[in-house]
């Protein structure tokens, strides 16, 4: 496979990797460009763009709402791709699309993967794509279009399953921080730390990022101690929703995490 920005990132940077999630089309249809630029400028390492969906079963109230708003704003995959086509050349940061399976299969999986490569998407997270089906039907496509695929694991995932996922993942593993849907939480509990350590000790080939419930400097630092970094979603959506000046407040938020 050709080199890819996600791979390069993990090769050049071992820890404290910060990935920022936002929903395409939120708060307004045409905010995509400004938000992405601001995330890169503020020094985050990965951008994860959520494709809005009517029925996001793995998401808590914050991201449910950003999905609804984005859909009401008229966001579609077609529009997202055209936005990305315009601005991708201006950014260096790795970009991952995160989306539920149905909008993608309606677009057409091959067409989708092709378009992803064209507009400079580096990786995909499709939470409701079963691994078995990925291996049988889609793995070849992902490879053809140089897309890294990330699977999730949770505290309930068995060691055997984690090994299987490690074998079939080729960007990083997304460690869901607790038995939970997405949403900003307060503290990282001792049980969570035990789980981070248990997985950390497995000697997996893939780097790990911890996501779901990571919301501020404290939870980011704790997560980054037990993995290569972490993903912030709902807390960032909260910033976007309240922001009067998007760029400035994105900058302040991300700097506060990295400080």
């Amino acid at each position, binding site marked *: 496979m050709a080199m890819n920005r996600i791979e390069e990132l993990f090769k050049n940077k071992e820890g404290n990797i910060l990935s920022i999630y936002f929903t395409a089309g939120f708060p307004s249809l045409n905010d995509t460009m400004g938000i992405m630029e601001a995330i890169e400028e503020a020094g985050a390492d990965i951008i994860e763009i959520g494709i809005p969906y009517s029925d996001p079963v*793995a998401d808590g109230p914050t991201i449910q709402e950003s999905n609804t708003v984005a859909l009401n704003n008229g966001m579609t995959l077609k529009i997202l791709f055209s936005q990305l086509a315009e601005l991708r050349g201006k950014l260096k940061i790795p970009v991952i699309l995160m989306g539920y399976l149905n909008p993608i299969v309606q677009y057409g999986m091959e067409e989708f993967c092709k378009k992803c490569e064209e507009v400079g998407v580096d990786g995909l997270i499709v939470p409701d794509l079963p691994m078995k089906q990925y291996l049988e039907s889609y793995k070849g496509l992902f490879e053809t279009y140089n897309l890294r695929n990330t699977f999730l694991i949770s505290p309930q995932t068995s060691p055997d399953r984690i090994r299987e996922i490690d074998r079939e993942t080729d960007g990083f593993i997304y460690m869901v921080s607790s038995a939970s849907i997405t949403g900003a939480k307060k503290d990282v509990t001792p049980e969570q730390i035990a789980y981070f350590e248990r997985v950390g000790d497995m000697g997996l080939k893939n780097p790990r990022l911890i996501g779901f419930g990571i919301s501020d400097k404290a939870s980011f630092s704790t997560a980054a101690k037990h993995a290569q970094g972490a993903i912030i979603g709902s807390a960032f959506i909260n910033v976007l929703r309240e922001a009067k000046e998007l760029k400035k407040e994105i900058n302040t938020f991300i700097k506060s995490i990295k400080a």
Partner: protein
Amino acid sequence: MIKIDENGFYGDFGGAYIPEMLYPNIEELKENYEQIMASESFKTEFDSLLKDYVGRPTPLFHAQRLSEKYGVKIYLKREDLCHTGAHKINNTVGQIILAKRLNKKRIIAETGAGQHGVATATVCALMGMECTVYMGAVDMERQKPNVERMRILGATVVPANSGSKTLKDATNEAMRQWINNPVDTHYIIGSVVGPHPYPEMVARFQSVISAEIKAQLLEKEGRDSPDIVIACVGGGSNAAGAFYHYYNDEKVRLVAVEAAGLGVTSGKSAATTQLGKPGILHGSKTLLMQTEDGQVVEPHSISAGLDYPGIGPVHAHLFASGRGEFLAVEDEDAMIAGIELSRLEGIIPAIESAHALSALNQLKYKASDIIVINLSGRGDKDLETYIKWGNY
């Protein structure tokens, strides 16, 4: 042949499209349900509760005046006489026994009209299990008596406030809460929908309906199969139960009746096979009402139990393979059929079931045919809708 493959597919439809967080829950169920259901002690407990608690077997009633009116011999399978008023309890009794044997301490469920929620709250009370039911905020407003029935039975009813605030969103919310409580909680899905193994498991619990029809028809007619079986389809559990033992008996016509709402082309309909395309919702690949961009479309039906944008994968397969005949009945025609049965037979049907009755007006049949209509529920819960409609 209607057979499920090892990955949970009926033909092209089914499977388990779930986030990894649910994978252990679904695996646990998949690994255990067949073995548990096959055990003698499970069968004994299930059969005895169906008999003494639910009130089975439900009668197969020869509806003479209805038969005369339509010029054909019609039997009604009286699921409306089940405890709590609909077939839904066949499934909840089965799943609660299963949940106990999986050492689960809590039950969650989704509900639309509230029938499945009531049936779940009922068996939870019976077994002393904690019960939380998710219900769209809009449905809670529309179906107040059922909300209170659940509360009287000791369940907590939680409004689903996302999306359109109806059944689809209640199902999303129940799945989310299962992600949040993966170890001690069992999710009792109310129809033949959801990720494998739910569709097949629920169909097997409901298959008691056609098992009884066979025995009862043999006694009454000297043959164990009718010419036609008719059932309404929301998710499709009462239909799956009524069809189950006839899937492979090609002589038996299987007629599935969907809700056309205000008309199939009106934009306010729930006729999934006519309006849907293959897609993925609630963990399975099935026919789904959706936009070009793959966003799920809000259905409409006067009956909350049929107000769902998908159908169970087994029905998608029955449709695609041609084994099933699919009809759609509009709100108005269902109401007329409900009043007709009330006047001809002294039975006020659930509006869901009235859709199945109304299919008699569209169906081609021979005078010599024997038709079984699955009367999935009684109309008590729908009195307010009947009154509002007012045309009686």
